[in-house]
């Protein structure tokens, strides 16, 4: 692969080993890689000495890393190669004031002054409230009207702003303007120790607390060469699968509720509540927050608890035997879900969509199967997928994923390795960095962590799958009617907090 350095998921990488190539070489490597169906895992800037560096982590069936040095601008990859770069380039422009020249839609992501204190790429002085001087995209015409929604929405939901251009009920364009819950997580991480970083990571997106904490732990643990006991790793997977099940249950019910099928909402939130109560009883927290810590986990499982969790699986399977066929076949429900909010396979690939959103469109990628990390390397992970790309397909895929998670939970519970549930974090003598990749319930969650000697965090870049799935919503909503937006939005369910950081 020339100058691309192959790395393993969660392997330690010396910062001095990361290839630093001239920009032209960097551009060719990245463009060639992405054109051959490569994905961008992370692409971000940082300051090293007096210069600006760009670092890209990319994957096909393996992970690779490469970096380069740039000045105040660079030719946009979005313009020359693929839309997959577009969010990353906007973020680089916002965070570091480095302009991707000819970017077709250079819009801020979260609306804040850049970290370097150089002139603003977007012409904002940040004296005005969000969105500053940004002109929203508008469609003109006699019958065209605009619908603005948010940031405060009608229901119990995170804040964000949506602009619809509509003709009658048909949506001609949707522009998402997020950034309202930007609270400076990346900056907030700097200067923390590892334990502090993981507590913060657990709050990047509360519904994915296990997966984000695990990704941050994995990045740190492998950066410093800390081996996590096998029992702790298995318990982490149990936590992650329980998190997946809880969220799928809640969202499947909520999708049905958004088209007025309250029956499913009542039953799925009932099942979710029972599941969460068991979480509290066994792991001490209804959402499993702060159970994953550097080196391991805080809670062990005794025989009685293992038994309880196994019974949980059995009961949930039994319930879903009733509910899933009913959902999949109920005519008035399916009438609303089928063909609503279609994301084509082509669009899913172009945008680099992730997780169940991509899998429901036929892009069948799951880290647990395709780039497995412990303990998934020793189990078979079935990956439900569909080719329809509609809301019904996303609901269906998630139903399938619950059943797969229950099988995995049974396997992990039945073969829980003996031993400790944690290792002590050793002294950290030299600067190092690591990448953690975990398949959360929304899709792959990536954490890049750079540590200084003494174990102080100097860069944390968490990439929630929502980051890449939000643009998919802008695409799949086209031509749908405004009243179907809640359904389409819920069927993707991006995290606002995970996007805004």
């Amino acid at each position, binding site marked *: 692969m020339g100058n691309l350095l192959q790395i393993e998921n969660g392997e330690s990488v010396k910062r001095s080993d990361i290839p630093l190539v001239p920009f032209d070489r960097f551009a060719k490597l990245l463009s060639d890689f992405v054109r051959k169906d490569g994905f961008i895992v992370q692409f971000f800037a940082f300051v090293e000495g007096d210069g600006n560096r760009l670092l890209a982590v990319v994957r096909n069936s393996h992970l690779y890393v490469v970096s380069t040095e740039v000045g105040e601008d660079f030719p946009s990859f979005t313009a020359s190669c693929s839309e997959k770069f577009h969010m990353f380039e906007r973020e680089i422009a916002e965070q570091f004031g480095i302009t991707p020249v000819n970017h077709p839609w250079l819009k801020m992501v*979260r609306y804040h002054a850049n970290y370097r204190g150089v002139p603003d790429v977007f012409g904002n002085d940040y004296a005005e409230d969000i969105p500053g001087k940004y002109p929203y995209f508008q469609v003109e015409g006699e019958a065209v009207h605009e619908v603005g929604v948010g940031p405060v929405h009608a229901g*119990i*939901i995170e804040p964000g702003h949506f602009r619809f251009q509509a003709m009658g009920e048909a949506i001609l364009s949707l522009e998402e303007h997020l950034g309202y*819950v*930007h609270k400076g997580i990346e*900056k907030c991480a700097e200067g923390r120790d590892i334990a502090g970083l993981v507590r*913060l990571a657990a*709050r990047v997106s509360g519904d994915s607390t296990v997966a984000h904490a695990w990704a941050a732990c994995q990045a740190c643990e492998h950066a410093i060469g800390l081996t996590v006991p096998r029992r702790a790793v298995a318990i982490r997977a149990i936590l992650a699968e329980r998190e997946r099940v809880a969220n799928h249950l809640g969202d499947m019910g909520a999708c049905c509720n958004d088209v007025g099928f309250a029956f499913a909402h009542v039953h799925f939130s009932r099942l979710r509540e029972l599941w969460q109560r068991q979480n509290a009883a066994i792991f001490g927290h*209804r959402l499993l927050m702060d159970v994953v810590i550097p080196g391991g986990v805080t809670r062990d499982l005794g025989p009685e608890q293992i038994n309880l969790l196994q019974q949980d699986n059995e009961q949930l399977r039994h319930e879903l035997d009733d509910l899933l066929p009913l959902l999949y076949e*109920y005519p008035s429900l399916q009438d609303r879900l089928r063909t609503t909010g279609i994301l084509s396979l082509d669009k899913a690939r172009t945008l680099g969509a992730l997780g169940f959103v991509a899998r429901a469109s036929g892009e069948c990628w799951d880290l647990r199967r395709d780039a497995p990390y412990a303990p998934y390397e020793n189990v078979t992970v079935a990956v439900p997928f569909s080719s329809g790309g509609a809301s019904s397909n996303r609901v269906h895929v998630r139903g399938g994923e619950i059943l797969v998670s229950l099988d995995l939970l049974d396997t992990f519970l039945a073969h829980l390795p003996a031993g400790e549930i944690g290792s002590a974090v050793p002294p950290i003598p030299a600067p190092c960095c690591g990448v953690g990749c975990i398949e959360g319930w929304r899709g792959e969650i990536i954490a890049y962590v750079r540590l200084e000697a003494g174990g102080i965090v100097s860069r944390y870049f968490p990439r929630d799958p929502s980051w890449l799935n939000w643009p998919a919503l802008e695409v799949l909503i086209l031509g749908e009617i405004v009243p179907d937006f809640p359904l389409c939005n819920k069927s993707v369910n991006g995290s606002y907090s995970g996007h805004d950081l």
Partner: protein
Amino acid sequence: MFSVLAKSFKTGCLTEKIPDRDTTTVQLGTACQQEIARIFGKSLAIRMVDAGSCNGCELEMHAVNNSFYDIERFGIHFVASPRHADLLLVTGPVSRHMQAALQRTHDAMPDPKIVIAMGDCAADGGEFGVSYASCGAVANVIPVDAVIRGCPPTPLQLLLGILEVLQRY
């Protein structure tokens, strides 16, 4: 159609059938109901604003509406407009970008404008504190009547917090 009815029949009424498991809910809820009757007549309307949370608090806010807690039976319900709200329930550290929206939501409410800061972030900024992007505690932006600690507070802690603020009125 029949499959829906059959499933509903088989599941039964959760809200009433498991009182032994949910006595705390019933006790707290009934106490709330009495206070609501004293202060507002019949019901308590809540407008929630996520001012920057990680969405953990929102998950638990949804939970208080599920069949087990079902807080509507105590006269407590969430409303879409601040103009219909008696109580503002705010989560998260207040991000700089939500400062104006939160302020305006608060301005739009009729008296008595009761404000509860829900969760550790709303209480003191939590893990995020005060930074270029975060104003920290809700009290740094609007006057707060009560704080419900927890990360996130459980449904029962939320109900208890609402009861405590009502008892003070």
